[in-house]
């Protein structure tokens, strides 16, 4: 029994340590801070309900169609959403300050399966204080921002998917 406890302690400790030290390129661990609210509607006019899935990590992504890295990254995010559909990760995609027409025509061409929230006046985005666009935040199930992803990334890269899976699995273990 004692050996089992020691083994469990070591594995829990090492998994946490691994998550900290082996971060994929562009992901930064930050001092946790509460994620600002997102009282926004999506493209279908449905209100986003924060903490609808309180047991899940959230992948919160801010973008605009005029930003080059955002345009390049969006198809890869669509594929990531599909690849992680069975994982306990909630995707919250937020367009910053563009008209519905612009958003519809852009997403229709590059990522038609994505239903983005519309931050019509850009104020919700401001509250998150992104470093630039695109910006992605990883928010833990208690609503704390734990990681910031700088710039656009290739989410098809298995390193990122493994990292995200590890987060959700560790969360399940800790519950």
């Amino acid at each position, binding site marked *: 029994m004692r050996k089992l406890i020691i083994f469990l302690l070591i594995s829990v400790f090492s998994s946490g340590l691994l998550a900290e030290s082996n971060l994929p390129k*562009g992901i930064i661990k930050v001092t946790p801070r509460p994620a600002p609210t997102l009282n926004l509607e999506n493209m279908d006019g449905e209100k986003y309900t924060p903490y609808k899935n309180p047991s899940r990590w959230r992948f919160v992504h801010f973008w*605009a169609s005029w930003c080059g890295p955002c345009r390049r990254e969006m198809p890869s995010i669509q594929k990531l959403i599909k690849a992680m559909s069975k994982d306990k990760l909630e995707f919250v995609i937020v367009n*910053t300050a*563009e008209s519905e027409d612009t958003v519809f025509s852009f997403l229709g061409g590059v990522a038609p399966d994505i239903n983005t929230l519309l931050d019509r006046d*850009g104020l919700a*985005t*401001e509250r998150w204080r992104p470093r*630039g666009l695109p910006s992605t935040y990883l928010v833990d199930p208690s609503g704390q921002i734990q990681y910031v992803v*700088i710039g656009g990334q290739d989410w098809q890269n298995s390193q990122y998917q493994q990292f995200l899976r590890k987060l959700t699995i560790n969360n399940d273990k800790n519950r």
Partner: protein
Amino acid sequence: MKIRKLHKPIIYLFAISIGLFIYEASLAAPTRHVIKNPSIKMVIIPRTAEQMAAFYEGREFPAKAIDATRSACFFTIGIHNKSKNIIWLNSLQWQLSSKASKIELIRNTHWKQQWKKLNLAQRFQSTFRWTLLPEQLDFHPDEREGGNITIPRQDGSFNLTAHFLTGTDKKGKPVVLEFKNLRCAKDNN
């Protein structure tokens, strides 16, 4: 012999059209100023008033806001931290000077006040703000960010000295980049 005589004008025309093509291409391609060293890469691209107007028109900005942008020269800046340390951007510390005088960067707060005066809708203010280079930012290793800086429109050339502090505590060896003979880009009217 006759054939040769016929070919001469064609060859001249061909040479002239190639010359024109090269000249037009040189006008259309924006000048890029690049400085690259082991720790940082910085790119400056001057933008013409029409390029900026077209960009903001494409984002449905009202004419009054686009007119306001014409009083400024826009330069798109790209910065890539190639080092393994934090590099601190503080554009307020950059020095810009022409032969005649010191040039002040137009602060982001100036634009905010300008938009307030023009009663510009919040969504346009937000988009404009995101197209500007942040005035201060800690660049993480391998981070790339970009955006525009603006100065009052002017004719002559000027130099820009960009200072960057380095290291988490800002006590590392500073990086200083000097760009010479920058000019506001002009539209070909």
